[in-house]
């Protein structure tokens, strides 16, 4: 009886206080911690890859006349980081920020507006400005003719050829 109690006493006396004085002393998060999302509006091309992969289905894209609005309702985020892996442009970055408590859910929302480009022929918006700039950058010979070709939507291209 006493033997076991003495052993328990020894076991607990060997260890001092192990709790950390958080939040008075900040804690460095581990390297792989997945925290708040950060979205770069200049990189996003509105491809909706993240919309399809998000398990909590919190990302939505609304299409308007001359812009696309990407909304992240991050209050529902489970911080799995799948959107960042799926993003082809690396526009979504996962930070180490984890102290996200708030009394207003709206604080966590991320809203991004992407400018759309209208087709030179039919006038319908067909691609995002970021995407077009990327395509222009990739062009070998940046002549006016080549650039204008990119500003025509697929449908008009088919009709023209």
């Amino acid at each position, binding site marked *: *009886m006493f033997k076991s109690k003495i*052993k328990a006493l020894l076991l607990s006396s060997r260890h001092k206080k*192990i709790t950390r004085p958080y939040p008075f002393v900040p804690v460095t998060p*581990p390297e792989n911690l*997945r925290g708040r999302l950060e979205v770069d509006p200049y990189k996003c091309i509105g491809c909706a890859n993240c919309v399809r992969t998000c398990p909590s289905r919190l990302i939505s894209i609304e299409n308007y006349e001359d812009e696309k609005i990407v909304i992240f309702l991050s209050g529902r985020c*489970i911080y799995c980081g*799948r959107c960042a892996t799926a993003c082809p442009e690396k526009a979504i970055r996962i930070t180490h920020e984890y102290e996200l408590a708030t009394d207003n859910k709206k604080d966590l929302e991320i809203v991004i507006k992407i400018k759309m480009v209208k087709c030179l022929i039919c006038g319908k918006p067909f691609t995002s400005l970021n995407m077009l700039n990327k395509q222009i950058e990739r062009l070998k010979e940046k002549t006016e003719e080549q650039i204008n070709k990119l500003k025509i939507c697929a449908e008009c291209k088919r009709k023209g050829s």
Partner: protein
Amino acid sequence: MTKVKKIIENISDKIETIDENLIVYSKPSQIKDVAKLLVMQGARFVHLTANDFISQKNFIELNYFFSLIDDRINIIVKIPLEKEELSISSISEVVPAVIWAERECNDLFGVNFEGHPDPRRLVLPDDWPQGVHPLRKDFFYSSRPPESKQPPPLKKPEEGKTVIPIGPFYPALEEPAYFRLIVEGEEIVDFDYRGFYVHRGIEKLAESALNYQQIPFLAERICGICGFVHSSAYCQAVEKAANIEIPLRAKFIRSLFLELERLHSHLLWVGLAAHIVGFDTLFMQAWRIREPVMYICEIITGNRKTYGINIVGGVTIDIHEQHLKEIEKIISQIEKEVRELREIIIDDEVIQLRFKNVGILKHEDAKKYCVSGPVARASGINIDMRVNFPYAAYPILNIRVPLNKSEDVWARTIVRLEEILVSISIIKQILESIPEGPTSVKVSKIEPWKEAISYIEAPRGQLFHYVMTGPDGRPYRWSVRAPSYQNYQALSVMLKGASIADAPLIIGSIDPCFSCTERYEVIDLKTKSLNFYTVEELKKCSKAK
């Protein structure tokens, strides 16, 4: 396999063999005979679920899952029930373990089981209207049917017996659950459990809104302690159905985390068991020993729990050399401390007096209720999915299954303490032999209408996942049976004849996963009548004051 096949052949329409599964097609009138034959052959009941084919073929298909542990065969008995006649005789006389599964099928699919001993609601809330069955395909996943008042499905005690409600907030484990002990004096004579208050409709959501790669993250949230087993089981089932062979390194990483999870889950339980009997020093120490496991998981995956690393086709992270070294350091430390902990528990007379000969689950009863995990192994049943149906990296690893034959809470404690040490030895083997290579493969299109079963030995016992792939990029049916589901049903046997003081310990000894409640039961002392308050009424009460 041929022997079983021959025996069943006479009473079935068709038999197919796919991998290790024996699929038996039969008629509704023959189910009792089929079940009897299978039980006589030593088959163990696993789960019963249904599959709604009303829109395609005008029937609901019942799937009874059995397994022959020694031969490593799964037997699926498939029985179609015409839409007009959704009724079948209950097999609870032959297999008592089916009781909850049949109640669940009745709730979610509207299948009537004739001669069921306890046809009350199990899963659906009390205010859910009659005749609305949420897992049928014509029920839209986000629709909310109107509330309807029903009498609460609670057991009425016999004359002269008293009800002692434990819960709705279970005091010892600090989780919400609602147990009703029906007592005569000090002795418990009957037991009733009303749970499923937070049945979240995870299966329905997965079947109607998510895609294959989103579901692992949802599956991981089924349980707060052993979530990784669920995502692994789901991924394995889909990989089996789609014939995806994942890289060996991914298998080892899954096994590593499954063992780390068992380690911290068992240490958590040891702490809680000590806490229930008032030995708080041990509780604190067990949890302190557990903490480094959480740290190492956080360092590797970024999260203490719900690691979020499983996807169909492998895992999303890789483990570096320095992580492996750190794990080795941590588990050697834990091994040393767990041995000390075990000595303290074994030498302590007070713990022995509280644990020994309490909550006895006899070998036959354990077999009858198909309990699994440490509860079964403490009743002398040699069952461990890591050995019986090896998955992930377990075929390569050497596993010892600790058994105990004393059938009480003490046996469950000893088995769990042994299992911690077994887990540590498995982790050491994994660290030694983890191969290099990629950690995931790319998954292309998954063929529809393929089905697969996957088992995992969760810390609490045998976990079962069933997946039937569907045409829309998501499973047509995904069924989960957690180990506590079977273990709960054996509680009535363990509690009968025990004294009230032992009830929290016995309930705690199966390491249950709880759900929370929405209603309180109040006994009016003056009139001795039972009053039930709904959430709205309680809100009104609190506002009035």
